[in-house]
């Protein structure tokens, strides 16, 4: 796939043929032990994409009476796509293990996107956020070790490093320093729009997940760490959401979102090793093509414009689901001391007073991320394994 035009030539599965059974929705899960970590990465990512598809369409419905029925019809299918994807996570994942997997998604997918992104400012923003999610992984890995006595690498499978990034204690910024400059819809590449929709959706689900599971923990340190990192995830949603052009109409955003869904499912289908999941990703590529085509028809009808105005242009290669270790390390070495000042990225010493004050207040009674990770060094088999470093 190089051009979205090629996708528009394919009508996909008509909406009225997109059906499910309850058994399909709550089908057999993946194996935490035997499936590749990137299979789980794709499951979590696509759950986030579908979650955001529902979210966007619900907001659209609040503003457009004439679109309420088709949006509701597509949402019903997306609800069931999302369920059949999210229910693939097996029950032997503790909420904290799933958290580690969520951060692996954030790191590996954001790193892939940052390298694919043609707009330098947008790419910089992905690298900036990447180093924060990278740090979250380290703090959660420390907690998994020290709370549950488990090795985070049982989840990560050697693909992702477990070391400090930009310290979580310094992520807390005043809202004015979380907003970013947006792309301009008439000048931006399609992939730029797709990336912004994708990463915003992924971060949104991470925020919502932490908000839901944080109170399930009994441990006071765990509860505090989820509270702290959920707050940063809300900042990330603010950051990535502001990359999109507010001048886009709802229908333009809808078209971009559907194109993003096609592109992301196609990336999953291309690289999936588990045959059962590969078949599901392929099926959902066809479902999304059906949604995209319907959205295009409605766009022509109500905006009286050619969807190619929004969707034209080449797409680079698929999202690469692989270890981005070298890119992450390089980014960490070069950019760990960057901070945000308004929409700009500045050296640490040029951070502005509002963020410094905001952070000082929040951190004034202790920092959960520091409590959980004091002196923590990852070792295979956990820090209790005396021979871990020789392995």
């Amino acid at each position: 796939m190089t051009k979205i035009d090629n996708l528009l030539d394919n009508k996909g599965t008509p909406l009225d043929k997109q059906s499910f059974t309850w058994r399909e929705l709550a089908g057999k899960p993946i194996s935490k032990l035997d499936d590749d970590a990137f299979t789980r990465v794709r499951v979590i990512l696509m759950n986030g994409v579908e979650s955001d598809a529902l979210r966007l369409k619900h907001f659209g419905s609040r503003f457009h009476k004439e679109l309420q029925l088709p949006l509701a019809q597509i949402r019903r299918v997306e609800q069931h796509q999302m369920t059949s994807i999210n229910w693939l996570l097996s029950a032997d994942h503790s909420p904290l293990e799933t958290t580690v997997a969520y951060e692996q998604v954030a790191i590996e997918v954001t790193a892939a996107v940052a390298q694919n992104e043609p707009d330098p400012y947008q790419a910089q923003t992905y690298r900036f956020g990447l180093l924060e999610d990278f740090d979250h992984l380290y703090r959660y890995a420390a907690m998994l070790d020290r709370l549950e006595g488990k090795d985070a690498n049982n989840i990560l499978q050697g693909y992702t490093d477990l070391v400090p990034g930009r310290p979580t204690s310094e992520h807390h910024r005043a809202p004015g320093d979380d907003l970013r400059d947006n792309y301009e819809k008439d000048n931006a590449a399609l992939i730029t729009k797709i990336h912004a929709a994708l990463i915003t959706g992924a971060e949104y689900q991470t925020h919502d997940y932490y908000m839901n599971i944080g109170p399930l923990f009994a441990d006071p340190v765990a509860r505090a760490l989820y509270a702290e990192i959920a707050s940063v995830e809300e900042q990330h949603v603010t950051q990535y959401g502001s990359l999109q052009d507010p001048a886009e109409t709802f229908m333009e955003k809808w078209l971009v979102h559907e194109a993003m869904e096609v592109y992301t499912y196609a990336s999953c289908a291309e690289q999936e090793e588990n045959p059962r999941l590969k078949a599901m990703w392929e099926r959902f590529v066809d479902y999304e093509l059906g949604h995209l085509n319907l959205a295009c028809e409605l766009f022509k009808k109500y905006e009286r414009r050619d969807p190619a105005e929004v969707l034209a242009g080449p797409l680079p290669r698929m999202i690469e689901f692989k270890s981005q270790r070298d890119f992450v390390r390089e980014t960490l070495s070069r950019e760990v001391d960057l901070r945000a000042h308004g929409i700009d990225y500045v050296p640490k010493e040029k951070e502005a007073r509002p963020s410094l004050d905001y952070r000082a207040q929040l951190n004034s009674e202790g920092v959960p991320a520091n409590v959980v990770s004091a002196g923590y060094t990852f070792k295979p088999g956990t820090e209790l394994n005396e021979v871990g470093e020789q392995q």
Partner: protein
Amino acid sequence: MSEPQVILGTNRTGVQTSPEGTARQLEATRMFPADVPGDMSVYTAERERAIREADLIGSVPPPATTKGMVKTALDKTIGKAPEVLIDKLGERLAFERTGVRLYEAMVAKATSAPGADPALVETLRSIQADELEHMNIVREAIETLGGDPTAMTPCADVAGVKAMGVLQVLTDPRTTVSQSMSAILTIELEDNAAWELLIELAQKGGHPLIAKRFKHALEQEETHLATVRQFIRTDLLEQVS
């Protein structure tokens, strides 16, 4: 055994399946060391602070007045600090009630999972019936003391939290009979110790009749534990022989 309960496969969780990735992870820990001084004691200190400041999970509902209590000739006193006994009785009631449901899940497993054994099902049904009987013995004891057997006491609540892991193991369709019986073993081990303690508590509290009925339950639990242990031993030995 009709099908193996343990298989060799593509487990990817350990360092041996990703030696290069692990080596690079360790390299990273040398390049980017821990940035916050301290150790696990910082975590523990925070827990201790929270414990000192914490509220209790909840309270035991007050028993009805002695006037309303159903007493027997030998159980004339409500004892000292009756809420302790009521709380532990509430725990036992909750535990046995959940136990009935856990055995129901175990029956499904023994019927259909790798390692399924029809002879086991009959034994499990018999234990399940005993658990139901024990639940009713405890309910009657609580009523005798003027307590409310439908209330969830703090210890009952905690018992429910403890049972969550066992419930997850038993109801996951992917777990084997062997794995599930191991989960049952933790339940039976606790059950034995708990009944022993409860008998002592009832006697100290001046309730010899209640204690006597509980002895009957303990005897049955001892049999359950022996049965479960023997099954697990036989099952594992069969798998390796």
